């Protein structure tokens, strides 16, 4: 039996502000109603209505761009970019503009639903919030009684700003099993760069003269401000070298595109290091004073000649030499850009380590145009006390990989271990806006994992595939209907943002905090007490040491304490690594039995008739969450399978035909796009299609699902999924 350890709840109260409310901050000058044309009698005079322009933040992707919502008579008419929002250089992308269709979407979840048919059958009945929440609490408590509290897992997305409350509830409920997105995204980057620099820095794209990108498709996988700054070359000084098996829109903007063989980027990087070291092009003083293990690197890279790398990468040795020399010449204003999604192959952490080492030896650390440690805006933290249950075991994925993130876990490992009930069963699942059926590799396996659950509850705004397979579905208010906490967006020039409700939440949708509070009440007094605050109080507390933040947010929709980067604050100082220096040689890795300097291994050879399946982002959709949006759907109604022109001819396949893509774990049917924009040994499909949920009416039945094809493989160091290790066959459908 679980036992609540008797712990004094000496919570540092941040309350006592219960009377405060935040008046909605509207843009200073009201936009006047247009009458000019009306005066000519040519158009009908627009009716003046109650018009407000409200500062808020986009919620369509990770960037969280500043938005001014134009609201008239309680209806959001248009989302405009906030001109003060320096991080996004005052823009809104296609998704940001399409955000109003998240609110006004006939497919939206409108009220709580309880499943009545079989899982996946899509039969639900409308329920009251009370009934639905009672059912959730009852099920979770029963599972906890049977399997300890670790028997329930909490999976959440990020960026809603309210995910904190969801994770707080997980902790207060007493489970160690929270799973978040990093291992489907960037955890190997964080690991590889942190192991080298003690932190994961940001490349100073705006000021770099020479940028190399490996697959970080910045003109499509938009990251602010990098995607924008990449095109801001001053007088053409900027040079962009782009490596990708696909000719993406970033390739179209690059000075040179190399269609590198997938999975061989590390060979390219090691050969660059070889050239820079053997030709003594590195920053001698910096390397001597600020790095450890350079001597070991010298002997280590002897084998990695450009000629050797040519055989691995399909990039000419001369080209590798030239790029290496140019990179070193441009240093310290040169960066090997590491990007975000780093879930390429299972050696990804070591590949990122190699990138970090290359950056390190040219001395670009914390200097203009180089690799800059992030800063953030300081906000007061909300303290809470999670009850302690002494029978709760460690995380289910504990010990599976060398460096597991305590809060994020590793999705591929969790999926496998839950299925095997190893080392213990997990029978309940709470999901907050994470669409695991579209994002975790091997959808069939994820479905099995869900099938063995006694209970699944999903909180979302639309009927995602994951919601479709849940027992209780709870409708959250959308990002344009919520008051969300202040969030610091770290970077070279950090900003703080918040969301204000532009309209009242429609239907019966509720903000996550309200849902968490209701569940907390049902989990007992101790838990409820941790949620005893309003959003206004929470926000006031966040700015208690710096009220200027809230004032700026109300006045300009964004807070920043500087508009220009500050360089060199950590240069020559002790870094957060064990040695305090840049670790070319990692003793920490050596102690764990890992290669202390990255060692290259070749990817599996692709047999004739097979192709490597590549996935990637583009500028129209965010992962598996926006393809059903009416504006975006119109631009991209389905996904296609890219296949190289010569390869298609060799297989007798023609453009536009339906093809079956078969992998060891799944089979998907979609249309073929025959193109020169991809290597002959690879195929590519965009993410977000081939859905299971009939509740996504625009895209149901359209295209294929990449997650249904990708095998579960992961990086043994970071636990990051390896999304490019699957080989597929392509045949006419």
């Amino acid at each position, binding site marked *: 039996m679980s036992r609540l350890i008797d712990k004094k709840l000496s919570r540092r109260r941040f309350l006592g502000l219960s009377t405060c409310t935040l008046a909605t901050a509207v843009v200073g000058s009201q936009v006047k109603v247009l009458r000019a044309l009306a005066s000519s009698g040519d158009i009908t005079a627009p009716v003046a209505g109650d018009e407000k322009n409200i500062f808020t933040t986009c919620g369509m992707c990770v960037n969280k761009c500043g938005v001014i919502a134009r609201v008239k008579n309680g209806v959001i008419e248009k989302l405009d970019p906030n001109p003060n929002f320096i991080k996004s250089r005052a823009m809104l992308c*296609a998704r940001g503009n399409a955000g109003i269709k998240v609110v006004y979407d006939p497919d939206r979840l409108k009220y709580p639903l309880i499943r009545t048919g079989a899982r996946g059958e899509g039969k639900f009945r409308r329920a009251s919030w009370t009934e639905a929440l009672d059912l959730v609490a009852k099920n979770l408590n029963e599972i906890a009684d049977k399997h300890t509290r670790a028997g329930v897992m909490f999976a959440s997305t990020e960026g809603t700003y309210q995910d904190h409350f969801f994770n707080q509830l997980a902790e207060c409920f007493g489970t160690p099993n929270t799973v978040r997105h990093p291992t489907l995204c960037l955890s190997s980057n964080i690991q590889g760069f942190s192991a080298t620099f003690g932190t994961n820095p940001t490349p100073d794209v705006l000021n770099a003269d020479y940028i190399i990108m490996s697959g970080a498709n910045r003109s499509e996988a938009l990251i602010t401000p990098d995607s924008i700054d990449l095109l801001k070359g001053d007088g053409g000084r900027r040079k962009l070298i782009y490596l990708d098996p696909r000719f993406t829109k970033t390739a*179209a903007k690059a000075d040179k595109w190399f*269609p590198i063989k997938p999975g061989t980027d590390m060979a390219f990087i090691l050969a660059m290091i070889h050239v820079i070291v053997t030709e003594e092009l590195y920053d001698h003083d910096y390397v001597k004073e600020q790095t450890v293990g350079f001597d070991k690197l010298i002997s280590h890279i002897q084998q990695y000649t450009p000629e050797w790398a040519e055989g691995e990468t399909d990039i000419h040795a001369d080209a590798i030499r030239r790029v290496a020399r140019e990179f070193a010449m441009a240093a310290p204003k040169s960066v090997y850009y590491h990007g975000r999604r780093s879930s390429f192959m299972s050696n990804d952490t070591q590949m990122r380590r190699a990138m970090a080492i290359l950056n390190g030896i040219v001395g670009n650390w914390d200097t203009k145009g180089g690799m800059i440690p992030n800063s953030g805006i300081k906000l007061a933290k909300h303290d809470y006390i999670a009850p302690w249950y002494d029978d709760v075991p460690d995380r289910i994925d504990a010990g599976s990989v060398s460096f597991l993130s305590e809060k994020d876990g590793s999705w591929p490992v969790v999926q496998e271990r839950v299925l095997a009930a190893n080392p213990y069963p997990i029978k309940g699942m709470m999901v907050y806006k994470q669409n695991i059926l579209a994002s975790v590799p091997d959808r069939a396996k994820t479905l099995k994992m869900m099938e063995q659950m006694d209970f699944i509850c999903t909180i979302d705004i639309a009927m995602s595939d994951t919601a479709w397979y849940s027992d209780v579905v709870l409708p959250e208010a959308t990002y344009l209907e919520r008051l969300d906490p202040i969030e610091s967006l770290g970077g070279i020039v950090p900003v703080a943002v918040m969301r204000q409700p532009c309209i009242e939440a429609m239907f019966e949708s509720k903000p996550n905090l309200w849902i968490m509070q209701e569940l907390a009440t049902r989990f007992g007094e101790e838990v409820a007490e941790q949620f005893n605050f309003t959003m206004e109080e929470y926000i006031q507390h966040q700015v208690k040491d710096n009220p200027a933040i809230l004032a700026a947010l109300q006045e300009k929709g964004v807070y920043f304490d500087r508009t220009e980067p500050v360089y060199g604050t950590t240069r020559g100082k002790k870094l957060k690594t064990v040695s305090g220096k840049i670790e070319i040689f990692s003793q920490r890795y050596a102690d764990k039995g890992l290669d202390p300097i990255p060692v290259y291994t070749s990817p599996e050879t692709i047999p004739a008739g097979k192709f490597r399946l590549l996935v990637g982002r583009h500028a129209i959709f965010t992962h598996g969450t926006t393809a059903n949006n*009416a504006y975006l759907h119109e631009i991209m109604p389905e996904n296609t399978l890219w296949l190289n022109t010569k390869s298609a001819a060799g297989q007798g396949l023609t453009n536009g035909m339906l093809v079956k893509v078969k992998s060891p774990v799944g089979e998907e049917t979609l249309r073929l796009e025959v193109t*020169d*924009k991809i290597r002959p040994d690879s195929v590519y499909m965009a993410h977000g299609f081939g859905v299971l949920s009939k509740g996504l009416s625009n895209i149901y039945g359209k295209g294929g699902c990449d997650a249904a094809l990708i095998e579960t493989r992961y990086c043994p160091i970071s636990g990051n999924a390896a999304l490019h290790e699957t080989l597929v066959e392509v045949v006419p459908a």
Partner: protein
Amino acid sequence: MKTKRYAIVLDTHRCIDCKACTVACKVENNVPLGKENYRNWVGADPLRGSYPNLGESYTPSQCQHCSNPPCAHVCPTSATTVSPDGIVHVIDHKCIGCKYCMTACPYNARYYNEEIEAVDKCTFCTQRIQVGRIPACVETCPTKVRVFGDINDPNSEVSQLLAENPSRVLKEAQGTKPNLYYLI
């Protein structure tokens, strides 16, 4: 003061084909959804070369607000007119839906809007200009491909760009005298 002559100058080298301008326009101007109706669009020019030597560029486009607009010339009801600042308009209640203008436009800039039962097209977001704002496509663009302004004002950004850089207009030979200028 000289009358205004509004124009857009585009630096297509900066365009990443992200479609922000297209979606912003549709929302701003209530362009019907799901019917292939657009006031502006972005086209990928034909792929240059063959694997592995490739090049691709992207060209955003819309009504060119021609100084010699063939659409206005063919309109039997004068529903298409040019305002003093050079913006080509369709007065929807005068439009009888004959679509002559759609045929006459060399840029394919017009569509028939079933919701308002009139031909519709880009207006440089007149409703925004009137309150001192710039068109939605110009404002939202991540890389700021478009610059909007008055080419009759020699100090405007558009005038400066056109003075400092070579540019071209689309289908010049048609004699339409477009007011969208593409930097070369």
